[in-house]
């Protein structure tokens, strides 16, 4: 009996240790975002301090973070929306007509280093006068979101029994009508998974926006990065900016936890 208690105690210590390692950087970031610069550079590092909101005032007041926030939202929403429009029919076709090669082809976009298309984009978009435009940024972010949508949705559609649309087709409906009226309404969970994950990946993307956007369309990761390159690092401001950029993705993850886990683990467990 004693051994059982001991092993269960060791187990919980291990769990708490894992949780602490995972959480600590978040906690430190959060607490530093409420510290003054003096408290941040204090030695030894301060655990207890008088919290201040000045960092957040600076980030959202002087730094125009709301604009970058809006840019990230516009780009992410448009890219994910268009990826669903392009990707849902493609994923359906891949699932129903077992077009494996086609699926692998679209998945290549996830596999390949983004920079091998970014350099040519840069040249072409400059020629077309599309630098610092939402168009260029959204196009580039579709290439992030589309493979995720196709990957998740083709596996999801494959789990829906063929009889669902076939019985409607026997009654004279076309396949495209059955896809629209029968399959899509059944696909809510898959679509939530695909939407959440691809939005988060677009939200977090740094490289594409770093090259393709300037002041007008700058997204949050670039704004946070630029914050760093000031002469003297304003740690409190940077930490508040880091909190601001992570908060939406974390909230989305908490709300859609089940779906996010599924999306991140699905292919691996099946394949």
């Amino acid at each position, binding site marked *: 009996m004693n051994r059982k208690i001991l092993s269960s105690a060791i*187990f*919980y210590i291990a769990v708490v240790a894992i949780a602490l*390692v*995972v959480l600590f*950087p*978040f906690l*430190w970031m959060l607490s530093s975002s409420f510290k003054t610069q003096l408290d*941040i550079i204090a030695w030894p*590092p301060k655990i207890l301090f008088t919290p201040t909101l000045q960092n957040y005032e600076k980030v959202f007041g002087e730094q125009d973070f709301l604009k970058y926030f809006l840019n990230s939202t516009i780009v992410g929403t448009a890219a994910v929306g268009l990826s669903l*429009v392009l*990707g849902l*029919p*493609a994923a359906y*076709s891949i699932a129903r007509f077992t*077009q494996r090669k*086609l699926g692998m*082809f*679209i998945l290549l*976009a996830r*596999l*390949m*280093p*983004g*920079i*091998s*298309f*970014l*350099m*040519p984009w*840069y*040249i*072409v978009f400059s020629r077309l006068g599309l630098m610092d435009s939402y168009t260029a940024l959204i196009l*580039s972010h*579709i*290439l992030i979101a589309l493979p995720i949508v*196709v990957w998740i949705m083709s596996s999801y559609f494959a789990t829906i029994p063929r009889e669902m649309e076939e019985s409607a087709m026997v009654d004279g409906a076309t*396949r*495209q009508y059955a896809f629209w009226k029968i399959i899509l309404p059944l696909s809510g969970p898959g679509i939530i998974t695909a939407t959440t994950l691809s939005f*988060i990946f677009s939200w*977090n993307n*740094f*490289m594409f926006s770093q090259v393709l956007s300037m002041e007008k369309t700058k997204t949050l990761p670039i704004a*946070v*990065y630029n914050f*760093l390159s000031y002469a003297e690092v304003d*740690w409190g401001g940077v*930490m508040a900016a880091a909190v601001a950029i*992570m908060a939406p*993705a*974390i909230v989305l*993850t*908490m709300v859609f*936890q089940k779906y*996010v*886990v599924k999306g*991140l683990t699905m*292919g*691996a*467990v099946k*394949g």
Partner: protein
Amino acid sequence: MSRSSFAERHLHILFPLPALVFVAMLMVFPVLYTFFLSFTNWNLTSGLPAEFVGLRSYTRVLTEPRFLNALARTFAFTLFAVAIEGLLGVAAALILNRAFVGRSLAKLLLLLPLVATPVAVGIVFNLFFDPTIGLLNFVLQAFGLPPGLWISNAASVLPSLILVDVWQWTPMITLIVLAGLAGLSEEPVEAARIDGASEWQIIRWVTIPMVMPVILTALILRLIDALKTFDIIFAMTGGGPGYASETLNIMGYKYSFEYFRMGQSAVILVVLFVVVFGSSLGIMKLRAASEE
């Protein structure tokens, strides 16, 4: 024949067509263009048109020590990061693979690093690594150890970056392996237990072999991304100090968007492409072989 039946007969082409055209335009064409540029000496700042120089950009870049170091560093970063993530990730999954109070909370916590913006993660770790005000040196000194220079020193910068990658991506392996473990049947474990196997023997000889395909897939996914790691390195060190943390992706970025040597940069991108592609194909072959 009505129009709708034409659409229906060709649905397997019409449905994927828009996505296909999009990927062709934004991925295939640019990759081919990069390939083409790698045979030129094009420099965007020179104002001259691209000139075909055959393999000269290749011989120039491939013999450059800076490039060879970046290539070796890309592999070193990836191998160490993925190996550590694999070990810790599988260990954590085996620990967490039981019913306990707070299991779903633990899974939520594991998700957080995966959805955290990498650039911001890098910046938070910059604060930890700071030699004068950073928490890590405080902890080292509290244990009577000498302080480290972390990312400010050529010798320690790569391990420090690997540490950040390990923090952020180990949970990915854990979650995938946990999902794999959840799908295993109980019978072999029960059978081994009845035969008197110890917990450790069961894990070593029953559970791990059963979940091995899932572990390998998780490692492949991580490997592909680790080879391409950009955000944390760029944000934390920019490839420095000197070139001490410059990987192929960072070097390609600098050649493209800082020096504008498009021809040479294209060579680097072709190599990175081949490395990512070749390693993933190689491992998939290995995996297929190991399953037979």
